[in-house]
């Protein structure tokens, strides 16, 4: 049994009198324990909403969540608020994008760490503090015994994110959801944080869902990658396969717009034309069709299904990119 099974997860925002917005549309994927999977897509592709829906953090009013999210066989969507609260932090942890705004500015980082430890593990003050110092040490905060009494504004961006990770991992959750954990950090710190995350999840056998728009992050970290567009998964593949041989024109476009070291001098990057607002509803056809170089009339005749290809790859496209004869070495792309 997989650790997390998400099946036909659909999130609809809307109130009476307003045209409902489908943010996530029948998304299905599974996460095995110890596995790291990536959710990739640009802003508005539904990746963050997917993670909030799994955590049960979407507001109740004006939001409809349907489908199924099973964690170790338990249906999370039908749990009561109190039951869900017990799971959060203990079974499911989350790391947010902006560590400054996700930490409480008026409480020391130590108190924020011990809060979770005391709630979920029933430790007393002293034990919790000792455990907190150890956690800070583990995430690479220098001089943790002193730092523990500092406030978030006294730490640098990278250290704040380390603290966030320490808090999220405090109770050894089985699944960690990282929602763009490196977006607010500069590039050198990004690399450190990613290395830290991958080491921690490897050592503790924590499964991780990495949500990002940065394909470099995915390349370095994820076992399997889901590419989302307009609320649906358009391609899923094992990471080397995805980078070596992108089949969906959107994935191909994303990869084509990243500068590479082995690119011939003077060659221009190829951006994806248009923007997310050019989408058409999935019910009318492929949402990506208006921006797709391969699109023709077939693409707006109806929604393309998500089909399984040989090698375990899933693809939602009528006119996929044909695999080229010559491929760049995968290890170079996956930096």
């Amino acid at each position, binding site marked *: 049994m997989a650790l997390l099974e998400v099946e036909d997860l659909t999130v609809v925002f809307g109130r009476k009198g307003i045209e409902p917005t489908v943010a996530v549309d029948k998304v299905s994927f599974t996460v095995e324990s110890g596995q790291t999977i990536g959710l990739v897509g640009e802003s508005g592709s539904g990746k963050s909403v997917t993670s909030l829906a799994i955590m049960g953090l979407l507001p109740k009013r004006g939001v409809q969540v349907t489908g199924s999210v099973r964690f170790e066989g338990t249906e999370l969507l039908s749990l009561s608020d109190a039951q869900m609260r017990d799971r959060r*932090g203990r079974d499911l942890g*989350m790391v*947010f994008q902006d560590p400054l705004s996700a930490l*409480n500015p*008026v409480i020391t980082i130590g108190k924020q760490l011990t809060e*979770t430890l005391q709630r979920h593990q029933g430790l007393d003050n002293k034990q919790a503090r000792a455990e907190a110092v150890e956690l800070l040490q583990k995430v690479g905060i220098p001089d943790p015994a*002193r730092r523990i*009494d*500092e406030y978030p504004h006294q730490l640098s961006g990278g250290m704040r994110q380390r603290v966030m990770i320490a808090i999220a991992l405090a109770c050894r959750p089985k699944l960690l959801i990282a929602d763009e954990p490196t977006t607010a950090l500069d590039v050198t710190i990004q690399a450190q944080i990613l290395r830290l995350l991958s080491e921690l999840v490897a050592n503790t056998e924590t499964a991780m869902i990495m949500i990002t728009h940065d394909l470099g992050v995915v390349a370095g970290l994820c076992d399997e990658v889901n590419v989302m567009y307009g609320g649906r998964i358009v391609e899923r593949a094992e990471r080397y396969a995805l980078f070596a041989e992108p089949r969906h024109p959107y994935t191909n476009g994303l990869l084509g717009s990243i500068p590479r070291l082995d690119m011939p001098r003077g060659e221009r990057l190829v951006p994806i034309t248009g923007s997310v607002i050019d989408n058409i509803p999935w019910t009318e056809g492929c949402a990506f069709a208006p921006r797709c170089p391969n699109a023709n009339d077939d693409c707006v005749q109806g929604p393309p299904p998500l089909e399984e290809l040989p090698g375990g790859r899933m693809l939602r496209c009528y006119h996929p990119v044909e695999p080229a004869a010559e491929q760049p070495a995968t290890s170079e792309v996956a930096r």
Partner: protein
Amino acid sequence: MQMLLERKKRRIDELAAAGQGGTSLAKQALKRMLRDPVALVGLVIVVLFVLLAAFAPLLAPKDPYRPYPELLENLTVTNIPGPMPGFLLGSDADGFDFFSRLLVASQQTLIVAVLATLFGLMLGMIIGGLAGAIGGWVDSLLMRLVDVLLSLPALILAVSIAALFARSNQWTVIIAVGMVSVPVFARLLRGSMLAQRESDHVLAATALGVKRTTIVFRHMLPNALGPVIVQATLTLATAILEAASLSYLGLGDQDPFRAEWGLMLAQAQRVFEVKPSLAFFPAGAIIVVALGFTLLGESMREALDPKNRR
């Protein structure tokens, strides 16, 4: 070379010592405030006022609660004795020592202002806190009640509340003046609680499975308090003015022996043409103290403003 190294070491030690324990945002704000000359002026006025109020009975040279024969001697309808030996500011309209009464009045003024503000603060925070933390229909209901209170001009509200009581005393003044500030505190706290509810760190705390009550009291309330504290300081100033207005309108404390600046001002009106200084001194005292609280409040607001963080 050696010296440079020594210097570097010292600097490192200094930095290490400075980081000890961590400084909260409140501490930083306090530091910023103490660098601001306006805040210092306000602070000095307020501290002097509080000290005066605390030690007024000891400082007063004469008994403020009984008339003196020396003063009554020359007291006629057209003449109120001015300064004379032993009586720094002379007599008031009833043959009491004016200077002593002026000092002792600070006590009553402070008590009324502080208690009225506390009353308004408590009730306002309960209402605003509940509305902001629970939301939904509780929020709507409480806020409509607050709107009703807010729709009445402050003084008229205070006057009508004070008039509800058959015989007014200092408690009716406190309740009336406090009531006026309830809607202000309630709205303010509700607003900043709502802002906190949408904040990332509250979402993050929720994602960690923190209980709702803990989230409200530990993660939302402390972050929402800043503007309320500032407003409380400013309310102290307006409370003094409002209490004085109520006394002036005859809705204040009816105890003739109790000295209070607003009351003294009201009494001085009858004899204004005979001895205007009876009005000037209490009025001046009210103005200075209200100014002190306002300066303090304003600079506190500036210090707590995250835009001024350096």
